[in-house]
């Protein structure tokens, strides 16, 4: 019961944040509202018993990635976005197909809801740190290392790209 209430609260916050993200015309507001979304998502993760994911959601996403965004916004001092000409493809193909996507998703979810047993629920604590660690350093060791390489490459790329072109 408590779970349900919390879910609805934070889901509402999520959607509100996302909508605000679109509504705002200033990128920094969009960024902040995304942070809100992330925070509430972290809470939802906790509800789902994925503590580790929740924690790193905060640390990595909110604490690092979004800071980077804010940082760039501050650096470039990005102002209100101007309203240039609209893209017809985006309007007349993109948005309809998005609505179609929503419709399909809802439809399939309804289908699923009809023929799924409500008995199954989440474990209290599934994503304990130990469990994740065992997966990460056992079964998924190679991908893990590969991601570290990826990060390294990303760092170099960022440095090369952002350095002033003294050429």
């Amino acid at each position, binding site marked *: 019961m408590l779970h349900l209430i919390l879910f609805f609260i934070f889901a509402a916050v999520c959607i509100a944040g996302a909508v605000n993200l679109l509504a705002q015309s200033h990128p920094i507001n969009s960024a902040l509202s995304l942070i809100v979304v992330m925070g509430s998502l972290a809470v939802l993760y906790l509800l789902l018993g994925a503590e580790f994911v929740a924690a790193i959601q905060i640390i990595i996403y909110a604490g690092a990635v979004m800071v980077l965004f804010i*940082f760039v916004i501050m650096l470039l001092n990005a102002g209100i976005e101007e309203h240039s000409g609209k893209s017809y493809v985006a309007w007349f193909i993109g948005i309809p197909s998005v609505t179609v996507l929503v419709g399909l998703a809802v439809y399939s979810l309804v289908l699923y809801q009809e023929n799924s047993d409500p008995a199954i629920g989440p474990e209290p604590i599934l994503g304990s740190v130990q469990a994740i660690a065992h997966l990460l350093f056992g079964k998924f060791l190679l991908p893990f290392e590969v991601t570290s390489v990826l990060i390294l490459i990303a760092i170099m790329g960022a440095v090369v790209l952002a350095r002033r072109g003294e050429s």
Partner: protein
Amino acid sequence: MLTYIVIAAIKSVVLIHVLLGAVAYTVWLERKVVGHMQNRWGPTRVGPFGLLQPIADGVKFILKEDLTPPHVYKPLFILAPMLSVVLALTSIAIIPLGNQLPLGRWTTALQITSSPAGTGDINIGLLILLGVTSIAVYGIALAGWSSNNKYSLLGSLRASAQMISYELSLGLSLVGVLLLAGSLSLREIVTAQSRSYDFRWIPAWFPHWYVFPQLIAFFIYLISAYAETNRIPFDLPEAETELVAGYHTEYSAMKFAMFFMAEYANMFTVACVATLLFFGGWSGPVPKFLPPLVQAFVPLFWFAIKVLAFIFVYIWVRGTLPRFRYDQLMAFGWKFLLPLAIANIIITSLFVAWLS
């Protein structure tokens, strides 16, 4: 369930007030200590030894005109200080101050986020702590940007860069301790430190604090903590000589006070974490002759002592060391502390593997 919520609420109210009081008196303490270090008296006028000085300051802050300059981006300008102070206070919630506290019918843990039974602790306390501190950047960054002032902007840019950079070495320095304790729960880490050593040749009475096996990690933590809290010698974001007052140049009255409080609250958080991870938390001798209720409070006393010691060190360093140059700061963080922390992790993990 309900009682649990109520108790939690009560606890948090109490704790916040205690913390704010502590913050206020830390300011007093700081002024005193630094004063004596510089052969001055520090505050003496208000009350005996100027003990009422903090209250006077508080009144002053509240009564001052809270002006918002034009050209600032208002919503964020207002949001920023709140954000920082709220986050600073939040992090205290995770910290366990002591063992169970018997209160008549109920016994509860001296910690806000403890399970209804009052015994347990959230498994990932430390992670949450790190998360909260990592969010703390926003307060400063937004403040600087929103106040639309080049000094503020520079200050906040510096601050955010510096905090992100040192967050790494801070987190990594803690990993060593985690490896030894084998848990992320602060309470378990503390209990792990009450175990006796694995080696015969160390006497039993000698405290099994992780500061001894993790000395390097401890110093890394200390240094990065100073950077995290933007204290001297790393207080570049508010370096008066370079950029007036850094990110809170444009702030006044209560908003400024909030930043102020946030800074000191963060100091407390850091000190608490250091105490818990490196100095055995609230563990310490409990004299048996005292009445049980008092006995229950002795650990809290020990904890407070250790934390205050840290605060003192903070002040001491401030009174002693000059300020770094920014590039020095960054180079030091990335090129020295980080590799050192990683090396420490490697050595520790090898050690642990060897033990098991």
